[in-house]
């Protein structure tokens, strides 16, 4: 009997959140974004690894690539390693048949022999099949906690890119875009306030924004500084 690995996978994702390249604020990462977009269109590189701290848009980039590829009827798969790590590496079986595989947060499955060998084998199979793989990690392959040297070297097979942090003006733009998607209007003044009064990485900023979104909907209020204070610093 095979294990059932996904008991813990929540089905309550925020519905209908759409990740696109257009909504991605590239900042200094335009080249990486363009190369990933090219890969999703079936051209250019067949393996790319991006690494950066959380909140730098890795998941957005991977999902945008899947969305774009699927528009041209390509078969794709997005696997969030953090969420599947409790299961079995057999989830990689047969994925080389797909046109593009994206694996997010690969750090989460490092140091497990089963997962490391599984990923290593998957990369080999995808390469042999001439398909594409896009990987995201918090650490670069050189400094990642990988036990299997063979895997480490295969992670560096294609180009490896660091996603640089966005500058403040780009973070403001990113927040405003996200707010706009939810039908919220966010002035520069409000965006600046969030950026200067709370932790500044996008992961935290977005989380706060989603919280504000729900509150604003429930209380029928616009995004103003007094409202933000009342919600975030009650």
């Amino acid at each position, binding site marked *: 009997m095979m294990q059932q690995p996904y008991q813990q996978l929540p089905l309550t994702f925020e519905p209908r959140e759409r990740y696109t390249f257009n909504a991605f604020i590239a900042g200094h990462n335009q080249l990486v974004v*363009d190369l990933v977009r090219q890969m999703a269109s079936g051209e250019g590189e067949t393996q790319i690894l991006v690494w950066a701290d959380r909140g730098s848009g890795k998941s957005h980039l991977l999902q945008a690539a899947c969305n774009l590829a*699927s528009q041209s009827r390509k078969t794709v798969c997005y696997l969030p390693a953090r969420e599947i790590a409790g299961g079995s590496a*057999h989830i990689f079986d047969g994925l080389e048949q797909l046109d593009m595989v994206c694996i997010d947060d690969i750090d989460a499955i490092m140091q497990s022999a089963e997962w490391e060998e599984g990923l290593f084998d998957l990369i080999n199979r995808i390469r042999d099949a001439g398909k594409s793989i896009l990987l995201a990690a918090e650490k670069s392959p050189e400094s990642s906690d990988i036990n299997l*040297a063979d895997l480490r*070297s295969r992670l560096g097979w294609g180009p490896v890119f660091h996603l640089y942090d966005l500058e403040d003006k780009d973070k403001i733009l990113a927040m405003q875009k996200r707010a706009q998607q939810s039908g919220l209007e966010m002035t520069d003044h409000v965006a600046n306030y969030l950026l200067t009064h709370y932790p500044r990485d996008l992961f935290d900023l977005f989380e706060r924004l989603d919280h504000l979104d729900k509150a604003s909907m429930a209380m029928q209020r616009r995004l103003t500084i007094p409202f933000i204070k009342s919600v975030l610093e009650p």
Partner: protein
Amino acid sequence: MNNALWTNCLQRLEQELSDQQLNTWIRPLQVREDNHQLTLLAPNRFVLDWVKQNFRDKIENILLEVSRDDDVNLLLEIGTQSSPAKPAPATESPVKPQPVAPQKSAPVTDFGIPTKVAKPRQAIDSNLNPAFTFESFVEGKSNQLAKAASQQVAENPGDAYNPLFLYGGVGLGKTHLMHAVGNMMLKHRPDAKVVYLHSERFVGHMIKALQHNAIDAFKQYYRSLDCMLIDDIQFFAGKERSQEEFFHTFNALLEGGHQIILTCDRYPKEVDGLEERLRSRFGWGLPVCIEPPELETRVAILQKKAEESGIHFPNEVAFFIAKRIRSNIRELEGAFRRVMATANFTGKPVTMEFAKETLRDLIALQDRIVTIENIQKTVAEYYKIRSSDLLSNRRSRSITRPRQLAMALSKELTNHSLPEIGEAFGGRDHTTILHGCRKIAELRESDAKINEDYMNMMRILSN
């Protein structure tokens, strides 16, 4: 191919599900529509089970709506559909010399496992990458012996060295040589049954064969090969049943005078978790080591790659990259591809400034990782002495050798000047460092133990 029904269904799912649900579970599905049946093919059991449990009802409901009362039957199973594949990139293996019979969709057994029906001689899929030839292999001091032995084997399969056992660290060209032998054998004898596979794949095939009661077909298939190329046999470690099967396959092939080539990340005797009888058999033929390439070879590899891509890659840039990336060729290739991708995309020529800018983070990282202090610590730990001994004036042999080794490694692995290295070794003169480096170079030629220690530490520090 018109999957109108599924396309409509998908449009509805896209409105109702999040991107992550779609991309993780729905978009990996391949589809086949026949008359009143829609078959969704999942790549593996986990995706299949998850889709059945969580999305089947929804999909069926949508199907009912979009098919306008037609009675459509939904079938979910594991399998694949031979879809119009995109052309593989030039560096991959775009043309399989003798393709296998087209894979039909469906059965689990058809994940690349040999089927029960014996294939005609021409129908073997060798899995060889035609780009990996002896011509495209860059030879240097570190790999010339391995290349020569491989060529011998390719010229006289089953005779020269059997098995040929290529071992060494990751990304040094073992797989390339293995493919080169296979490709040359096929050139001389196009009907030869040559098969390359990774040891994990061998294990996978065997497990599937056992699950489907097809172990006899499995045995028959592997024992009928003219040449079997198995990569990374260290992954057999701890898998007793696979080792046993491999042992019998190995014996059968060897007795029949068929060629076997194996690669491994270490010497046969050093692989833990491998049965003694296998270890000793692996050593029967010729074990040859591939060392990490020296600077000149790394430069030549970069130049060869540039030549293959038909682009201008200045020498100084090749030297710059080769000096920075020392551990293995795969990483060298990764850095090369990154520079090339950036150059192609921006339309800028490859210059020193450009390469430095493109690889900025990689260089910063490496500089951070390999420091003189780090080298001293590693060497001291290796020889079980204190780091302070390396900086002291003690002149006993047990201290001077490690100290000289640490000096040589500092020169090779960092970009510090000799006076800076001297300073870091207790304020020694730069000529002392130079003498130490020369001494180690000499000893590495004459004393295998010193060479081995040097290479071991190099591996520890480079990884």
